[in-house]
């Protein structure tokens, strides 16, 4: 938007009234319990379930009512070697990647100029100079695919398939996103507020179910902790859907009675940054599957 003299003049005039606007127009809001400890890492899991995932020997030990503590729903490999739709998606992702990256520019666009995908997934979400904002991997895949002349919409099967393929080269490597400074810190703080903000027709925050009600029954399901979750996306759902994190957030929102937001929106990206930071220390593991 071009700044004209008229706009500058009005902006100065408005600045005088800005203080009262900020003080008076802050709307009433409610928050759920915030369990986030700083600096964020999976070791800070407020439900203390990480010791069970960390020590694989513990996996069969818990059962019944405590099974949710294993966060086993994602069926981490190599303990579960069942083939599922996520593996089919990996094959698709590999084929698409090879076509897109025929001249090496796709990988360079994603941030791997030498074509080496190992560890690339762990750089996301990142601040992008071309977007001038923090973006997730799927948003970058959409952008880089468009430059290569292909349409891979953020949240689409093909986009998620390429995401699974690219991320698989970081399997076993622990997430380590730095949210202590800069745009990632701002995004983390916004994501933290969004996660704890009560919204929708039921006045529920993400934290209402994943902090306040974690481990309890929500009809036939048990909400699990958000720590360790981000290492498994995109995931293959039992309802035969390859689901990216943002698409999952629209489903969470609908289940809670909240109007969903756009795939790739800043709010969802902020929540993605928040969730990723809470999984600092957890090794990446795709393709994953869950109910």
């Amino acid at each position: 938007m071009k700044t004209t003299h008229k706009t500058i003049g009005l902006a100065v005039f408005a600045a005088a009234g800005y203080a009262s606007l900020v003080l008076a127009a802050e709307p009433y809001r409610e928050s759920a319990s915030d369990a986030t400890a700083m600096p964020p890492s999976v070791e800070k899991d407020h439900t203390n379930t990480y010791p069970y995932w960390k020590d694989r020997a513990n996996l069969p030990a818990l059962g019944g009512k405590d099974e949710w503590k294993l966060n086993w729903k994602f069926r981490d490999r190599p303990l579960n070697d069942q083939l599922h739709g996520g593996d089919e998606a990996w094959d698709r992702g590999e084929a698409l990647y090879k076509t897109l990256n025929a001249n090496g520019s796709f990988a360079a666009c994603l941030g791997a100029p030498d074509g080496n995908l190992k560890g690339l997934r762990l750089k996301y979400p990142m601040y992008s100079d071309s977007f001038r904002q923090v973006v997730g991997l799927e948003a970058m895949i959409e952008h880089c695919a468009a430059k290569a002349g292909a349409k891979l919409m953020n949240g689409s099967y093909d986009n998620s398939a390429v995401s699974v393929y690219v991320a698989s080269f970081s399997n076993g490597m622990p997430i380590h996103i730095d949210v202590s400074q800069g745009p990632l810190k701002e995004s983390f703080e916004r994501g933290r507020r969004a996660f704890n903000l009560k919204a929708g027709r039921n006045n529920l925050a993400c934290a209402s179910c994943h902090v306040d009600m974690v481990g309890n029954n929500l009809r036939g399901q048990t909400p699990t902790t958000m720590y360790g979750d981000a290492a498994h996306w995109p995931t293959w759902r039992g309802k035969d859907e390859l689901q990216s994190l943002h698409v999952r957030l629209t489903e969470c929102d609908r289940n809670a009675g909240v109007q969903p937001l756009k795939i790739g929106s800043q709010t969802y990206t902020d929540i993605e940054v928040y969730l990723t930071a809470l999984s600092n220390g957890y090794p990446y593991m795709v393709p994953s599957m869950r109910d």
Partner: protein
Amino acid sequence: MQKRYVLGAGMVAVIAASGCATQTQAPAKVSEAKPAEAKPAAVWPEGLPKTALYNPEGKNKTLWPQPVKNSGELKYNEHARDLSKWLTRDPADMRPLPKPMTVSLNGQPLNGDAARGKEIAMNTGRGNCWACHALPGDAQPGSSGPPLIGFKSRGYSDDMVYQFVYDRRAVNPNTVMPPFGAIGNLSDQEVRDVVAYLQSLN
């Protein structure tokens, strides 16, 4: 909206000058409608952030994305209801949230129907009480809130139960329970029906 009253004249001028106040309206489909029955143009709800997945020209309007196998396209479907009137998670959403409300029957009869109340409580798309509470006859009881089986024997007055369902926040500020009446999730009559249902549980 409340905030308009505190805007200084300067801010109003800036907003008007920058064109932020204008809303894009879809043109009315005159060619498809008889002149006497022309539908009003679909309007983006005031205050709803532009990041909302929303089609004002649709039936239920709220949208959700569905990936299509082996495709780079995303299919969008309509949700079961329009969720736009409630607050979203986008921090740009400045719409008001109703504060905790103290309510009373004011000595008037409850006039609730227990059978209708059961249909509301045991329905995921309506009250969805069974998500958190154990209700008689439900195979998948929720355990996030106290069980409501045998609720009648708790001996609460209709007035108190009306308050609990209408807005539990006024009783417990830290509650997770949705304020069904205060937030406009259930109508006043629906709240009364749920109260009648609860007060009938042996």
